């Protein structure tokens, strides 16, 4: 049944005053409260014929510069925030009650309790200003409309300036801007950037962007929260530098040790030669000459291996058939192996497809592994030892495998396997072969696995994840890579 207009008017006139979610009081020029609603009484107690400053503020005299009373002078409505009892916050709306002559004879004061909202705003304010982050709010033009003090202290004045001007001192937006993505998809995004602070120093930061209206692609503002990671970056750099220096120190010490041994051999050769001449002993002279020659060869291999190890070369990836690389290595070592009584065979390798590889690098790796396997066979007392090379492709991984039934390795040797200048071959080895192999394999995003048993033999496997090889390959093509004509000619022979 429809409500009649008269009934509605009666309800407004009699009930609305008390039903409204506001504390309402009517006050005269002398601060006296004439009328109040039930909510006002519930909150502030009995108030009729009492002064508003007594009721609201427990004061004995009017408040200094009372905002409400100004309405009696200018007849204007007003709205302001008022704190009562130091803990409660109210939004006060003052409306004038005007007589037919236009004079304000009363004011209606409506107090809305905003304590919760106010406290939350305070919390937000504290978070905004006190968190150890840089925070800004930017609009769709990347203009900073709000920023915290922390940001201003580090990057300088920023209101109404573009964020990329403030953070990076640049004149155009960043390429991988997470804020732009948040404006597009309404989602949160994170990125790591390098900026420049107001004093011109480099600042590393992680920026997280969050749209003010989440999930909508038409939000007007995005909040950027920057975490300064400059100190971490500096520590990371220092650590890398310390590791590099330690590695250089270790390498130099190892190099010095190897050279000292070679020099001792040279000295020995000279002694044998000179004493042989003195004593007129041709045998001794020949021994001395051999020692000199041997140690010159050692110096040459040391220099060659060391340069190969130290060379900072990016892998030059080309699509190559790995079978061809294996065939080349077999061809290279077949006659040497046969001459010293070692059988060199190739395991079947079905289903292996061409893949992006650095032919020169893989050639070095396989050469080192085969050469080690042959040496291990020579150090073994077994008759007819053999070395096998295998190739397989399984679960997105390409495997090169070199196995031997030579002398194998004990615990101590395994522990030192990838240590600079460690060799089990006495003066014959430089102790750099496996290290160089490991380096090349890592450059391909792969790893070396091995199993070995002392007296039985070893199996070395190089595993290359194919997706990593393709990523490196695409990267090198995108950036122009390190490919050049010389490399093309060098790699040209690999199928």
């Amino acid at each position, binding site marked *: 049944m429809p409500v009649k207009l008269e009934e509605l008017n009666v309800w407004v006139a009699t009930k609305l005053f008390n039903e409204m979610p506001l504390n309402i009081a009517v006050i005269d020029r002398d601060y006296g409260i004439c009328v109040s609603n039930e909510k006002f009484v519930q909150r502030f107690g009995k108030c009729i014929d009492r002064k508003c400053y007594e009721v609201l503020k427990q004061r004995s005299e009017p408040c200094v510069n009372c905002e409400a009373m100004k309405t009696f002078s200018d007849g204007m409505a007003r709205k302001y925030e008022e704190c009562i009892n130091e803990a409660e916050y109210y939004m006060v709306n003052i409306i004038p009650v005007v007589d037919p002559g236009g004079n304000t004879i009363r004011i209606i004061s409506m107090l809305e309790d905003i304590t919760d909202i106010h406290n939350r705003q305070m919390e937000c304010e504290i978070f905004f200003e006190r968190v150890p982050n840089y925070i800004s709010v930017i609009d769709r033009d990347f203009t900073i409309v709000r920023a915290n003090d922390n940001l201003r202290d580090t990057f300088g004045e920023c209101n109404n300036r573009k964020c990329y001007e403030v953070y990076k001192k640049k004149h155009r937006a960043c390429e991988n801007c997470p804020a732009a993505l948040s404006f597009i998809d309404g989602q949160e995004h994170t990125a790591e950037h390098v900026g420049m602070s107001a004093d011109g120093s480099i600042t590393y930061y992680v920026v997280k962007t969050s749209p003010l209206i989440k999930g909508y692609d038409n939000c007007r503002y995005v909040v950027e929260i920057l975490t300064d990671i400059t100190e971490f970056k500096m520590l990371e750099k220092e650590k890398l530098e310390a590791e590099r220096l330690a590695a250089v120190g270790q390498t130099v*010490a190892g190099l*010095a*040790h*190897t050279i*000292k*041994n070679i*020099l*001792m*051999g*040279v*000295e*020995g*050769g000279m*002694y*044998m030669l000179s*004493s042989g001449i003195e004593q007129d002993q041709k045998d*001794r002279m020949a*021994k001395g000459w051999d*020692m000199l020659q*041997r*140690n010159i060869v050692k110096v040459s291999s040391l220099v060659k291996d060391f340069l190969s190890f130290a060379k900072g070369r990016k892998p030059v990836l080309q699509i190559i058939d790995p079978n061809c690389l294996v065939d080349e290595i077999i061809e290279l070592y077949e006659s040497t192996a046969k001459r010293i009584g070692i059988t060199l065979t190739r395991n079947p390798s079905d289903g292996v497809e061409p893949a992006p590889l650095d032919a020169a690098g893989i050639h070095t790796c396989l050469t080192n592994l085969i050469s080690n396997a042959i040496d291990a066979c020579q150090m073994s007392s077994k008759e007819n030892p053999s070395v096998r090379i295998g190739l397989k492709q399984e679960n997105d991984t390409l495997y090169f495998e070199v196995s031997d039934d030579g002398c194998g390795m004990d615990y101590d*040797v395994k522990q030192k396997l990838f240590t600079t200048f460690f*060799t*089990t071959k*006495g*003066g014959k080895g430089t102790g750099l072969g496996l290290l160089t192999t490991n380096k090349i394999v890592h450059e391909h995003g792969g790893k070396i696995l091995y199993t070995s048993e002392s007296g039985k033999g070893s199996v070395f496997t190089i595993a290359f994840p194919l997706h990593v090889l393709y990523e490196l390959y695409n990267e090198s093509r995108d950036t122009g890579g390190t490919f050049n004509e010389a490399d093309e000619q060098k790699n040209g022979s690999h199928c």
Partner: protein
Amino acid sequence: MDQKRKILVVDDEPDVIEYLTSLLEDNGYEVRTALNGKVAMELVKDDKPDLICLDISMPEETGVRMLRNLHDDDRTKDIPVIIVSGVDPKFKDFISHRKQVNPPSAYFEKPIDKHEFLNAIRTILSGIGIAQ
């Protein structure tokens, strides 16, 4: 005629063995050789030398291990040892202050000065009798 003093040369480098053997034999010593610490210990027990020239970095068993083995056996702990090694000179201080080994009688960094080397051997051996 005087009995020759016996020196055991331990080094994994055949050229070093060849050199020191010739040098020491030319100077009137009897020389035994071993390419690693394990074989060397067997030789020591079999035929006790008057002095040992010992390398440190060897693949089978290091010179440090051999020093410990010599120290742990009453029959061998008094044999003087001269270290002939390419390892860092700081190693000399390190090895001279270990409780588990006797301090070496002398320390020579490769390549050696052969006159100083021979002088050191003469001095060390002049202080002790011939091994039995």
